[in-house]
């Protein structure tokens, strides 16, 4: 490979990286929060739901700075999937796993399968499971709990 090709290839990689950084991420939790700062328990700016697309403006450690419906804030990397992160690694394992997950989203063990399972097992107390899933500790309560117990802020 001569020098010109090397420069062109380098610029191509830079261009691809720029595309990825301008891309979106998809919320993979049932619900989550876009926060004012890139830290847990920072004031909430917007609620997001599974499947919502957020525009990434920057990356800060384990957090993405994002824009969602004209609201700017932060979301933890664990709550989203980098839909096009695949472009950075077309030949690697990471790309393929991510791509498959996107392609097969909603398939597999999904609400349809759960419904069929519940019909087969009406004795199971899913109402109790939903009661448990409704347990919430508010951000304010959690902050007070941390402070009162002399614990570390996450």
């Amino acid at each position, binding site marked *: 490979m001569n020098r010109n090709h090397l420069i*062109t290839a380098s610029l191509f990689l830079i261009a691809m990286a720029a595309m990825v950084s301008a891309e979106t991420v998809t919320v993979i939790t049932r619900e989550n929060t876009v926060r004012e700062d890139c830290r847990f328990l920072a004031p909430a700016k917007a609620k997001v739901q599974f499947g919502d697309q957020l525009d990434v403006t920057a990356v800060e450690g384990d957090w993405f700075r994002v824009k969602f419906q004209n609201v700017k804030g932060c979301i933890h990397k664990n709550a989203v999937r980098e839909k096009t992160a695949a*472009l950075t690694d077309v030949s690697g394992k990471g790309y393929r796993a991510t791509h498959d997950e996107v392609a097969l989203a909603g398939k597999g*063990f999904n609400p349809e399968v759960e419904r069929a399972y519940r019909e087969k097992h009406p004795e199971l107390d899913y109402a109790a499971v939903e009661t448990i899933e409704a347990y919430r500790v508010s951000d304010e309560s959690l902050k007070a709990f941390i402070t009162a117990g002399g614990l570390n802020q996450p």
Partner: protein
Amino acid sequence: MIGKTFVPAVLLLLISGYASAGLLDNIQKGLDMLSTSSDATQKAARPISDEEEYFLGRAVAARILETYPLLKEPKLTEYVNSIGMVLVLHSEKPYTHGGYHFAILDADEMNAFACPGGTIFITRGMLKAVTNEDELAAVLAHEIAHVSHGDGIASITKSRWTEAVTIIGSKAAQNYGPQELSRLTGIFEGSIDDIVKTLVVKGYSKSMEYDADKTAVSYLVKTGYEPGAMKDFLERMVSRGKASEGGILKTHPGTLDRIDTVRAEIPKETADPSRVSRRTNRFSAAWN
């Protein structure tokens, strides 16, 4: 020479700066075509997604609730959830699809279970066996580590998941036909059996338990709890002769071995005793 390099360079920068969603889609489609030939192999290796783990976890929780009724004590439940959530936010997996939830089971037996996806059960018996908040945090941290490590999901028989992936991987099946749905529901049920059997009867492998203990100590340190709380709890179980009883200690490796593993992870620095005492006071208050 400059011209030859400059032109493609400018074009590429223009692409990067002004790429439309359509262009990105086309690039994606091209990459899709390139990878089509190896799709089948990739699907066989597809891991269980967070969403699937959530549905499995809900069913596992429902199965556990068949044996152990839920204790409905709002104040105590909020207290346990508060400890659990602070630990979770210091873990390497602070979010799951459905989030973490901590519930108390109305049983004398000393036990705790981590359902895939983040629902964690602790029995009333276990709450009575720990003597302070830091020990309770140690027990919860161990269970959070199992969720974070995906240990419940790992107990699903490999052949079962491979069969599921074959059905799921059929691109034609946007909505399952009755036969596919029936097969997939059967696999779902079998997977739940695998997990419940591991959680309640067999226990995880020794290495999974030791890893969960080590990770639990790291969560305690990050959160500001006493790092030696897990060791203190286990040592008390041994001294009271409870290490060989049923419940959680029946499905876990030898308690003395666990103590050795945990001891090696404990840093020299301990938590501020006045803070531990403050937390112990609220632990006592949570019961009243």
